[in-house]
């Protein structure tokens, strides 16, 4: 980056290209660069490398607030609800999360809440086997809220530490499907004090600006408490989380970096920002 070695319009254009190419989006990129320009003038910055540090710091500040730790303290069972649009990696992330929690010595129960898609239950069953988690399932076509209810009941009676509820993928514009996740949230709310203790919205790192609409509409249907950015092992940078953070004001808690059970990492904003410009 920056062949001319000075902070000129061409330099800012290069920064703009990097950010937009990383899916940061036009609006967010414009705001970030405006703030950077201000700071550069105010602090009389002369070297391009320093400008890069400023922008990285600004992005990190946006992303770094709030803890990326999971809500694991308190009376069990902790209830986690996992939502997101189709194909982003919900079921796989749940398998990885179950394994992650098992490594921490927790007992885990999975709820096969995707009662719609072909072989969704079988897919989650395979992950429960791999992770060493228990599973509650009904048959394909059953009421998803009923599965969630059943799972939370079972977790209480079996003294399970964490229940993770898988849900069917759904596009955020489908009102009836969004009403369904709201219902699942209400059902578990009634069953356990403070539940769901985590509502994780999974975002695919390859997603463009539609992520903002996803965040907004899922945020209206359920109390999203954290984001998981999946498929960061590809070439997409996942810059959409910056705008999504602005929309929902919840932290990124994990990133998915592959298809194997161990491919889950606690989010590190410094590493993320470094990779954004990498």
């Amino acid at each position, binding site marked *: 980056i920056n062949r001319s070695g000075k902070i000129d319009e061409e330099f800012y254009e290069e920064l703009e290209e990097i950010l937009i190419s990383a899916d940061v989006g036009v609006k967010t990129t414009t705001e970030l660069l405006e703030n950077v320009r201000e700071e550069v003038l105010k602090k009389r910055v002369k070297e391009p490398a320093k400008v890069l540090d400023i922008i990285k710091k600004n992005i990190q500040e946006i992303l770094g607030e709030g803890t990326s730790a999971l809500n694991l303290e308190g009376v069990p069972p902790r209830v986690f609800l996992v939502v997101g*649009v189709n194909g982003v990696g919900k079921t796989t992330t749940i398998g990885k999360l179950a394994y992650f929690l098992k490594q921490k010595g927790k007992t885990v129960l999975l709820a096969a809440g995707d009662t719609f898609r072909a072989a969704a239950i079988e897919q989650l069953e395979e992950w429960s086997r791999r992770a060493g988690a228990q599973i509650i399932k009904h048959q394909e076509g059953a009421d998803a809220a009923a599965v969630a209810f059943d799972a939370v009941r079972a977790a209480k009676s079996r003294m399970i530490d964490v229940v993770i509820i898988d849900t069917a993928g759904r596009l955020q514009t489908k009102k009836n499907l969004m009403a369904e996740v709201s219902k699942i949230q209400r059902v578990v709310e009634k069953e356990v004090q403070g539940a769901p203790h985590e509502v994780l919205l999974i975002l695919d790192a390859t997603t463009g600006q539609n992520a903002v609409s996803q965040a907004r509409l899922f945020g209206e249907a359920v109390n999203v408490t954290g984001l998981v950015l999946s498929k960061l092992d*590809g070439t997409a940078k996942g810059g*959409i989380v910056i705008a999504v953070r602005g929309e929902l004001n919840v932290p990124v808690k994990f990133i998915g970096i592959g298809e194997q059970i161990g491919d889950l990492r606690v989010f590190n904003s410094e590493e993320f920002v470094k990779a954004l410009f990498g």
Partner: protein
Amino acid sequence: SLTEKLQQAFKKLRGKGILSEKDVSEAVREVRLALLEADVNYKVVKEFIGKIRERAVGQEVMKSLTPAQQVVKIVSEEMTELMGGAKSSLVVADKPPTVIMLVGLQGAGKTTTAAKLARYFRNLGRRPLLVAADVYRPAAVQQLQSLGEKLKLPVFSMGEKVEPVNIVQGAVKRAQKEGYDQVIVDTAGRLHINEQLMEELKRMKETAEAHETLLVVDAMTGQDAVKVAEAFHEKLGLTGVILTKLDGDTRGGAALSVKAVTGCPIKFIGMGEKLEALEPFYPERMTSRILG
């Protein structure tokens, strides 16, 4: 809408029957913003704007249009032409079966689309054979088998312990022997940067002598669409693209990006999770969607 934004931009200028360079510069700024917000790739936008500039400067504004509408007309025509081109129907092999391979990133919609295509052919009176060649994803084979059962269409599978190349080979042999018209191969999702898996796909395509290699792309894909499409095209030689999940509110700029960098026609779009939700691709409709 873009037209409204352009009307605003043109309010400040005195367009007099011909689009001046200043008018056009003002207008392309708005067009550029609209395209980037729609997820069209940064470099594709740059190139596209260059074409618009060339076409628009000095253009006469038609009597029935405002300068803003004239620019939108130029942009729409240019984009529709870019995304249209040759009639995007599927290849039919001289000697059956026609082998169609679906490839793409994880979660794009390949398995669901494979079943949709099988249903499409069956409704045309053909006999398609679905092939469960994803041996990696948990329950992927069951997923395709379950969809096949719903459609009452056969699914060729050799379980999860056989190499995909051998599965494809077995499927084509079966299809030739039993007179199937199409062999529709569902493959495992994979990253374009995974050399081993990309090589596997190349060997599958060669073994099957695929007539169609279709890249399945999620319509909400952002800037990465270009890297992905280029890599798959370079490695395999794609013959077409299917854009999925267009039943949402994504603008779908990836369509323009993918077409621009590969030249491959978008042959179908996925408009829902149901197996009937497969539609032909209409460039004019995609254009107005992208322009918002």
